[in-house]
């Protein structure tokens, strides 16, 4: 299915957010996920399904002034 991931169209077969993070090889520690404009807490990633057309942002905190 097609989703919008960090502003770009992406193809994924991950059934939920936790699987998506694993598939992308991203360290889940300190990762922030915005799913269709809602921030999803880490304990709910495994129960939040990924569906066709979802808009997902994978974010983290970085150095900044």
């Amino acid at each position: 299915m097609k989703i919008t991931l960090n502003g770009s169209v992406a193809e994924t077969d991950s059934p939920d957010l936790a699987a998506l993070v694993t598939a992308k090889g991203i360290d889940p520690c300190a990762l922030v996920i915005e799913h269709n404009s809602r921030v999803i807490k880490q304990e709910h990633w495994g129960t939040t399904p990924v569906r066709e057309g979802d808009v997902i942002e994978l974010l983290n905190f970085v150095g900044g002034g």
Partner: protein
Amino acid sequence: MEDMLTLGQKTFSSRLLTGTGKFSSKSLIGPMLEASRSEMITVALRRVDPTAGNEDSILAHIPDSVTLLPNTSGARTANEAVRIARIAREAGCGEFIKIEVISDMQFLLPDNHETLKATEVLAKEGFTVLPYMMPDITVSRQLHDAGAAAVMPLGSPIGSNRGLEMRAMIRRIIDTSRLPVIVDAGIGKPSQAAEAMEMGADAVLVNTAIATAQDPVMAGEAFAMAVEAGRMAFLAELAGQHHAARASSPLTGFLRE
């Protein structure tokens, strides 16, 4: 001497806010915080680059005792700033937000109009809003009325190390503001931080000058000393300048023939 800085619901004994940008190694941030005694530090929110490899989080280098001040850098409109602020709070960063809305990419100067709009929204949502702003007395008053917890006029463009180019306007904001005034951006050396504090600024935010020093830990300590010295000088109410000399030794009773 009990001389605390109050921002929103929190009080701070340090008047030096720091930032996490531009450090050559994140491992310097913890020792810098210890040396500078800074109790509040900025962080930014960005998209993850899956190709960049996994690094440890910047948050892992900030002790729990230090208050996080997420910024809305990257926002060009009030709506974008509001979105970033909400994400930061949802992510567990607390109530503080530094609003930074920039559309001028040459000098990175803040957009006061969009900043004011974002402040109105976020203050109503319970954020402790610290808006980065072009020094402007009218906007300073409007930010107060919109519910900001402080105003953060810039000294000079971000990262320029040019000090208080906006000195005259900052002084007028200090004279008129009912909110704490935190001079942010452009402070390049401790003497400039001290100058802001001597003028009566309530605090300063220093990132680039500390982070890009050859020894950021020692620079952090130097800025802490300057901020404290400047604050004490302000509280001591130093006498003003005079054109002519005024003798500091008696002008009578000379041992003269």
